[in-house]
């Protein structure tokens, strides 16, 4: 952009013009043998085989020593079709091999922890649900559990069961997006359409129940915002019938597909020791062989009543993470079926009038109910001073909420431990000494959601 040229400069030399005549300059490059190809002789039978691809010389990875200054630092993102949001990677490449990489985050930083200090405890759900936007119910559940622990209240069994139903369906929809984007990034573009097609049926159920397809603000401290709609069992039964058959189709497409296996087996390996040292949780940890699921170890919201397995992998590569996610969809559907069959009757929110608003009809009848309603919706309920850390198992790993209250109606400090934040720290070690083309598959298999990372 050299539009600005001062008046003095143009006035100084009005007659001299810079002319460049092609071919008169000195050549900067003296041609060498470097980079020249080896032309194979015509009469070698092997040349035809090489052209047809019957014989492949695959030793390009173990080339001769490359000089230090031949490393190239390139930038991937933040605007990139395959980085799952605004993730920026700085890659130091030696040819096609990545020697070092550095994830640079912060391009989606929304100041949610500061905003949480301005909103009162029952408004906090609106803020928190937008962190991990693919699993909004899990965010709300973690936050509500933390606030309820500070308040010292327990939700009724129906509320707990409803929470399990919604979060497990959310796990299914989140893993479907993970499969869809994983497939699309590796090249199976039809997976994108299939994944989102299944997701639509689950989102339709969410819209019927909560009013929104995403970012629901439905699970609140004290219970839920409303009861399940009439006829919810038919909708859930339809989902339960539909999705396993479709999952079988995806297995046909991907599970034993030689192209898929070639691109995902042995790629992006994280060992169990590395995973534990870096604080990685969720499917990447389970694919490495560590059987750790917060729903089994530190159960919450009554999930210990339902029977389900925790799938684990063996090698910790991209293929194992994909299998773990598909198996987790099956397990979540099992849980949903059990919840549907055994949903207890009762209240969907706790009865404590200091926390949950009274039913609208009571406001006309009782002065006390009116006062409670007024105080709850102007100031909000006050939470006794204290601090707590509650973690739930989100589709990405351990999603933890550290909430500190000093006795007011707004949190003094709310910190979210995002699973993708910790999982991204492992990217440099998984991508070291691997090929550039495997980067996309590795990132897709870690399934980061940048809203969770940057908050």
């Amino acid at each position, binding site marked *: 952009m050299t539009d600005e040229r001062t008046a003095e400069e143009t006035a100084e030399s009005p007659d001299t013009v810079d002319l460049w005549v092609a071919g008169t300059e000195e050549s900067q490059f003296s041609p060498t043998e470097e980079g020249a190809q080896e032309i194979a002789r015509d009469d070698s039978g092997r040349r035809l085989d090489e052209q047809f691809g019957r014989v492949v010389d695959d030793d390009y990875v173990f080339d001769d020593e490359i000089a230090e200054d031949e490393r190239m630092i390139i930038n991937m993102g*933040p*605007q*990139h*079709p395959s980085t799952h*949001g*605004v993730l920026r990677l700085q890659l130091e490449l030696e040819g096609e091999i990545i020697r070092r990489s550095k994830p640079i985050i*912060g*391009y*989606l*930083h*929304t*100041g*949610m922890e*500061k*905003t949480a200090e301005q909103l009162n405890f029952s408004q906090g759900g*609106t*803020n928190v649900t*937008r962190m991990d*936007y*693919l699993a909004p119910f899990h965010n709300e559940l973690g936050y509500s559990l933390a606030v309820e622990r500070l308040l010292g209240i327990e939700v009724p069994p129906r509320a707990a069961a409803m929470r399990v139903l919604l979060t497990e369906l959310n796990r299914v929809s989140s893993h479907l*997006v993970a499969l869809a984007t994983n497939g699309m990034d590796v090249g199976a573009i039809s997976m*994108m*359409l299939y994944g*989102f*097609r299944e*997701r*639509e049926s689950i*989102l339709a159920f969410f819209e019927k129940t909560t009013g929104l*397809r*995403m*970012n629901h603000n439905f699970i609140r401290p004290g219970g839920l915002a409303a009861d399940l709609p009439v006829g919810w069992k038919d909708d859930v039964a339809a989902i339960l019938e539909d999705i396993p058959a479709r999952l079988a189709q995806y297995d046909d497409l991907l599970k034993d597909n030689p192209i898929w296996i070639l691109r995902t087996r042995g790629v992006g390996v994280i060992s169990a020791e590395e995973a534990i040292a870096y604080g990685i949780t969720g499917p990447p940890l389970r694919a490495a062989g560590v059987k750790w699921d917060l729903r089994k170890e530190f159960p919450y919201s009554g999930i210990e009543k339902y029977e389900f397995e925790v799938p684990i992998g063996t090698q910790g590569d991209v293929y194992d993470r994909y299998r773990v996610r598909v198996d987790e969809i099956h397990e979540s559907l099992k849980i949903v079926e059990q919840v549907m069959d055994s949903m207890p009757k009762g209240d969907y929110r706790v009865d404590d009038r200091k926390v949950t608003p009274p039913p609208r009809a009571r406001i006309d009848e009782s002065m006390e109910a009116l006062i409670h309603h007024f105080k709850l919706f102007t100031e909000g309920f006050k939470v006794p001073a204290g601090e707590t850390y509650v973690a739930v198992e989100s589709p990405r790993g351990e999603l933890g909420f550290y909430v500190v209250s000093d006795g007011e109606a707004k949190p003094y400090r709310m910190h979210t431990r995002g699973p993708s934040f910790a999982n991204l720290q492992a990217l440099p070690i998984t991508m070291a000494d691997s090929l550039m083309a495997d980067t996309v598959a590795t990132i897709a298999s870690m399934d980061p959601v*940048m*809203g969770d990372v*940057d908050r």
Partner: protein
Amino acid sequence: MATTAPGNLLITTVERAANWARTRSMFPATFGLACCAIEMMATGAGHYDLARFGMEVFRASPRQADLMIVAGRVSQKMAPVLRQVYDQMPDPKWVVSMGACASSGGMFNNYALVQGVDQIVAVDIYVPGCPPGPQSLMHGILTLHDKIMSGEIVR
């Protein structure tokens, strides 16, 4: 727009043809940032199909795109990146600000977000919602098509 002079009548028809071609094959640039990006992907997927409007090809390179759907919240760190991508798009280009956070900062009125992407780029259509459903986004895109066809937006 339509003049009575015979010489200009031909140009007007050409302009109408050009507008028709532009609307029927808009290529969106991938600028999905946050939750709205998921709804944008859902709009491009099978159920709410954007391909019937000629828009299923989301071009990653801004040089090949002419519509930038800013889907999501724009943070202070992302603002220069957004401006650079917008500058790289060739004319004619249009911007749809999708969602509350892109239109006005949304529910996050704080230090970290640019309060509305129209502080940085010129916006043609604002689509409200948090996130706007695929139907709202399509309504916004089709409104943009109408505006281009009618000549209201002249680039």
